[in-house]
């Protein structure tokens, strides 16, 4: 009963996410307020559906959503959409949706194409994963990774707008990029979003270390997932410093935001699917 409700929520999520992505694109092209509203409403529906799906999963399985890749990806999608939605409301930035929503869409497509139903069902977790610290670990990862995805979208917007303006054609009033905020605002927003996410990523790594210390007596064992999360952390630390000290704002900062998110994705996919380690639990 609850399981089938969860499945329906998943498909509602897939539909809402796909539709809102398309609508954000249409809105960028047509500037019809109605379309934009609809896109935002569908994003809200997608957030609600994924939240409900995750909560149902936690109720039926009795543990945080980390027993397999399906659960983690679902949480990742929720994190991206929730942080995006916050940014849209806080900064009145609907055009960002066109660049952020494709990420959860692709993640959901990945789930549908690569995971059979038997890979999606809740699995028993080994005793080591029964720890409250892991709940914090997952929540912080969700928001940190979500925010990094949003800074990625901002970086892409920055680069697009910059290249249009560079080619001389001062963004025509009709051009899509004219709907983007000023370059300076995009740049600073990306910085703020990374500044929001960096402490969370740090907390994610720390709660992971606390858990590992309870479970194995080692707070840090350099397993590939840990190492890659550290590398991601260092890349974003580099982003913050370069920006601050060399005035690497604008273009280079935007590239670093894009690059940093590539590291986030590798930390998740690369490590789970190519490299072995403690976190192979999460497969």
């Amino acid at each position, binding site marked *: 009963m609850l399981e089938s409700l969860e499945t329906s929520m998943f498909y509602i999520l897939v539909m809402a996410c796909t539709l809102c992505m398309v609508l954000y694109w249409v809105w960028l092209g047509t500037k019809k307020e109605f379309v934009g509203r609809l896109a935002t409403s569908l994003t809200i529906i997608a957030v609600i559906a994924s939240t409900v799906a995750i909560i149902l999963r936690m109720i039926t399985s009795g543990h945080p959503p980390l027993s397999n890749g399906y659960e983690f990806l679902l949480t990742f999608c929720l994190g991206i959409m929730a942080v995006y939605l916050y940014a849209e409301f806080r900064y009145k930035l609907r055009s960002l949706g066109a660049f952020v929503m494709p990420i959860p869409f692709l993640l959901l497509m990945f789930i549908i194409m690569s995971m059979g139903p038997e890979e999606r069902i809740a699995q*028993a977790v*080994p*005793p*080591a994963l*029964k*720890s409250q610290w892991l709940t914090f670990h997952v929540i912080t990862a969700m928001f940190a990774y979500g925010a990094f995805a949003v800074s990625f979208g901002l970086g892409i917007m920055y680069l697009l707008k910059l290249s249009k303006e560079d080619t001389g054609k001062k963004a025509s009033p009709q051009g899509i990029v004219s709907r983007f905020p000023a370059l*300076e*605002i995009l740049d*600073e927003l990306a*910085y*703020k979003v990374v*500044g*929001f996410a*960096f*402490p969370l990523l*740090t*907390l994610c790594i*720390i709660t992971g*270390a*606390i*858990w590992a*210390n*309870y*479970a*194995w*007596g*080692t*707070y*840090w*064992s*350099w*397993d*590939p997932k840990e*190492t*890659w999360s*550290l*590398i991601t952390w*260092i*890349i974003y*630390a*580099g982003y913050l*410093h*370069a920006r*601050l*000290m060399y005035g690497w704002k604008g273009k280079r900062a935007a590239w670093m935001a894009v690059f940093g998110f590539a590291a986030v994705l590798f930390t998740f996919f690369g*490590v789970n699917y190519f*490299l*072995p*380690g403690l976190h192979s639990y999460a497969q």
Partner: protein
Amino acid sequence: MVEDSKSLTDRLWGAFSSMKLGLALLGIIAFVAGIGTLIPQTEQDPEKAKAVGQLWQTMGFTHLYNTFWFRLLLGFLCINLIVCSLQRLGGIYRRTFKLTPPSNLARVPQKTRKVVQGELVPLRESVQEVLKQKGYRLTLNDQGNSWSFIAVKRRLGNWGSFITHLSFVVLVIGALLGSILGFKGYFMAGAGNTLSIQAIQLSKGQVTDTFSVRINSAEDRMLPNGERDNWYTDMSILENGQEVARKTLSVNHPFAYKGVTFYQANFANGASFTADMNGQKTPVILQDQGQGYYQAPGTDLYLVTAIDPSSSSQKADVLFQIYKGSGADPIQSGKLSSGQTVDVQGKYKLTFNGLAGFTGLQVKKDPGVAVIWLGCGLLLGGLLLSFYWQPVVLSGILQSENEIKGTLTVGVLSGKATVSTREALEQFVSSVTKMLR
């Protein structure tokens, strides 16, 4: 000579206070750490690590994170951070506690400025009132014809990056303490066994403690739905044969005694026997599947055992085999149910008492862990200050045109986020003008 050595230290100091070096180090560390995830590491995958080319092994690529040169990189980063922090300490202190109001117009931040005109007295009063309402900390300079102020909000945010940088040094110290003073080991023991802490298998450090450990019971507990609940080990600490502590531990619920912590790591099944040799009874506990054997004293008979897979898990039977010397084939074998006794080659009588759990425990002593948690706390606190508690500094000067009217020029120190500091200035100015009306 003195000249030279001074310039050398100066140059070293200069190099280490450079953020370019810092960023380069961070980049190199990230890159090297990444390489370590592509090459099998001895700690995680000893088999594959051995297959890596000899040259790479010698250079340390298979135990990369423990190599001297990787630690050297971390050490350089630490020095870099300390030098950098020391150099900036004075500035941070002044920006937090010693803010001085601008002495002339040129000292008001240039990039972001606003001007308000009005009568002198109400203007002064509303500036002070608004700053107080908005929670700013105010320093005034009132010298007859020139009146100026500097106001700061969330001033402790200045310390964010300092604390963050120091925390990294604390973390490295914690890790160092652990690797110098601590040890790490593992043992597997069946219920009923007692062993000295000195006898465990070590992978790091040395054991200086002298107590013994007795495994009272070891259990693999299942939930009613068939999932594994947890593995439980009831164990006692013995000092000179006396029980001084006892606890049941399980995965995620370790047990610490005098700085030595025991972690439930894994579990195996085994069987408990009694060997009766001319009336002298010895308890024998053997792990399933021939992991370990029993050699009866004064014989060259070796006993191994396996749990009979076809028997029920509640009342399991065991299969046993007796080997003689280095012979490859057993000279005696059979099956025993609980309570049954068999004669082994006329040398001793073997009784099967029932199943016994074998518990695998990680044992660790790490006096650096507390320092690590301190470092984590500082790191997080520093980051929260840096990003969630950014200071705002407003400063302004009021110049009078005649004795009644004047012009207030206010500026805001452009912090890391220029758009939002500008907002703070605009809010301030609009509140002041509102109050003047």
